[in-house]
């Protein structure tokens, strides 16, 4: 590792502590170990924090996955209830979904995508999806249609129960009555 531009010899450094500073990138560590075997390798603060955050995020994702796996029976119940929805309740759900579509569609899509990416934070999703590129997002929306509908349905159930609670009585049309 010699400078291509410097013509001056390296100053003598015998007897001095030598430090080599780099980010935690294996090729750099290999170079420094080969070229400066006696130097103390120092990793900069920024990358240590970044790696620690990534490790913490992985732990959170695993825990979130476990919690959701525990939540599956409720998801199955909602799926079962939605499959048996008919008549006026079905119309009411569709109407509510259309009325709330300004935020509900994106909300349900977000939750479905979060499941697809194993509960990871959105910053760790595929670049095209997290950047909301048109075609990848449309493709994801199409392939996750069932999950999106289910999350919309669960939100509708929750909303109905909440309105009932605020009125001081049981929720109107709630299958949980």
């Amino acid at each position, binding site marked *: 590792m010699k*400078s291509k531009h410097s013509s001056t010899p390296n100053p003598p450094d015998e007897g*001095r502590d*030598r430090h080599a*500073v*780099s*980010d935690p990138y294996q090729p*750099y560590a290999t*170079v420094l170990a080969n070229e400066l075997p006696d130097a103390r390798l120092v990793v*900069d603060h920024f990358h240590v924090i970044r790696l620690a955050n990534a490790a913490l995020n992985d732990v959170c994702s695993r825990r979130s996955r476990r919690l959701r796996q525990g939540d599956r029976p409720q998801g199955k119940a909602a799926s079962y209830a939605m499959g048996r929805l008919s008549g006026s309740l079905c119309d009411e759900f569709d109407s509510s979904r259309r009325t709330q579509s300004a935020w509900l569609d994106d909300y349900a899509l977000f939750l479905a995508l979060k499941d697809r990416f194993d509960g990871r934070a959105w910053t760790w999703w595929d670049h095209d999806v997290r950047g909301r590129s048109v075609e990848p997002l449309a493709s994801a929306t199409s392939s996750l249609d069932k999950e999106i509908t289910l999350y919309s349905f669960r939100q509708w159930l929750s909303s109905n129960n909440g309105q009932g609670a605020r009125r001081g009585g049981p929720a109107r049309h709630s299958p949980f009555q």
Partner: protein
Amino acid sequence: MAIGLEESSFLAVTGSHPTLLVTGIVDLDTGTLIDVLPARSADEIEA
């Protein structure tokens, strides 16, 4: 004596090439940039 190695984005991505990264070698005692190498692999840097 302290020496630093760090990658830097040299040219931003365009339609004809990806982001071009280089390795800067710095003398941290004097704050002097010693060299800039158009490479990131161990073999190329050591060469």
